[in-house]
């Protein structure tokens, strides 16, 4: 039975998603200024990675709540939001790699000059992927507010019949 997304619930979910994005943006922007102790850096990196995981969980929960997913047309939904899923997972991998490498090099001295060519390249990739992650995730969060994804329609019925 298709159920529409309630406005109150959607507002809460959207605000949570925005909050997760803002936290990640602050982490990416200002962790270089907060290199006081290696433990502080470690905690900040862990919080950032957990926020990315929460964002993935929230977006997949939104996928599961759509009528298309409940009708069994998972492929269509994933096909439509594949850019978001790919960018999120690539960005998560880049974050893990950069944090692990950076912490490994800075564990003894957080202010040590660790900027070799490889680390600079990984740093640029991770920060650029972060911008793409913010854009695609925000766009998906806004598109998932479309009521048509939560309603039955003739097209969904036809697609379901094709796949039976």
């Amino acid at each position, binding site marked *: 039975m298709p159920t529409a997304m309630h406005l109150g619930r959607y507002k809460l979910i959207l605000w949570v998603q925005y909050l997760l994005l803002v936290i990640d943006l602050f982490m990416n922007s200002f962790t*270089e200024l907060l290199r006081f102790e290696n433990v502080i850096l470690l905690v900040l990196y862990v919080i950032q990675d957990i926020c990315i995981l929460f964002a993935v969980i929230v977006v997949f929960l939104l996928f599961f709540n759509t009528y298309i997913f409940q009708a069994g047309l998972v492929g269509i939904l994933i096909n439509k939001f594949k850019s978001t899923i790919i960018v999120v997972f690539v960005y998560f991998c880049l974050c893990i790699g950069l944090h692990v490498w950076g912490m490994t090099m800075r564990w003894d001295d957080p202010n040590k000059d660790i900027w070799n060519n490889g680390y600079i390249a990984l*740093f*640029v990739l991770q*920060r*650029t992927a972060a*911008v793409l992650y913010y854009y695609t995730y925000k*766009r998906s969060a806004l598109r998932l507010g479309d009521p048509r994804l939560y309603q039955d329609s003739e097209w969904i019925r036809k697609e379901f019949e*094709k796949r039976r």
Partner: protein
Amino acid sequence: MSDPAPARRKLPPLGQTGSDVGSLDRTPRKKKKKRPPATGDSPDGETHSPGRALPKPGSARSLTESESNLETARSGRVIPSRPKSKKTRPSVNTDTLEDIEDEDESPRPQKKRTKPREQLVENGHIVSDEPVTGRSVDRPKKKKKKKKVGMTESTNIGLEADLQELEDDVITEATDSYEEIRYGAPAFMRSEPLNKLFIEQKSGFKAASKEKIARKRAMNQQQQALALAETTPTKSTIQFAVSSQNIFRTFVLFLQGLLAGVCLWQIITVYLLSQKGYDVLLEQYKQLAMPVQCMYYFMLALSTVAVFDKNDIARPNKSFIIRSVTMQTTAIACLFYLGGLMFSLSIVNIDDRISQYDPEKSPWEDDAARDSELKKWVTLNLVRGLLPMLGWFVISISPKSDRLVKNLEKADENILEGIEPVDQDTALRSSGV
């Protein structure tokens, strides 16, 4: 040897000929009277009933006939067999009436008095209700049923004839009286339609104007519609998404302007400081290096996302690409901001070294390396500042345009877009058919 008493008792049945004597011709008659129940059959086929009451006075005609039969029986006159008429009654049981019936001239076979189809009475009780058949057997008298209008079960012509007569009688009398009432209404009872409705209340009838009531109802309906509109949420989820995007766009538009100004200031400051020597530059700028770097990344990231949303680059179409190439859209600003972001990120190591500058412990090996790197940094810093300014220049031409908002508002996000329809053969193969 025939028994004269039963023969004398019997009168020819009304409406029946001699050929019909042997059979119980239960031609139904009008059901206007109930006869008392009759006894069971006698061995010789005759039905004897104890004293049978005269028909009830409810049916005038039958009463008259039976009375006449009674009279003729008492007088001893031969009653000629009447032609078969609608009013003949099949005689089932003998009764007192039969006892006083006169005998017919021709020897009449023992036959039962016909009774109405619907009623077989025995011993004063209604026994059964059977249709008329050709059998000459004593049957318990049936209960007379009032035949309802529209019944199609009856196949007996006599009964239908009786009913027709009844209907004729009824209709004639009723219509006459009804017409008299309808057309002969006195003058004081004429209809005078008023523009009022009379509403029944506890105290009686209250008159109310139809126009007022209609107006009141229209007002109530309007108020209900307004109340419903107020209670129901006016925004849908997609409208909330659009409003949040509008808020983000407005905020980032301010940030883009601020970024352009900060970039201009930073370019001028670095240029002026570098003119005084790299030592002065390092000494004065080392505290600003990393905060400016972090600020650049923060504002460039937001600006890049906003300009991507403004042009909705994830959903390009042919017309948009052509218009972007011909510089009719703000898509070029995407390149400016993304370029500025990447340039800013690429000089983070130099910014970090400038921020870690200590005259006693230089992060550079020698002054030559330091000067070359700082020269490179000033150039890249200039590019890092110019690109957001150019982007802001392009954005400021059409600050309110937002392709993502338009697409969300139109609900143009066709979820079929970009998805190939499933081939029938592939679907059948995949389903295992």
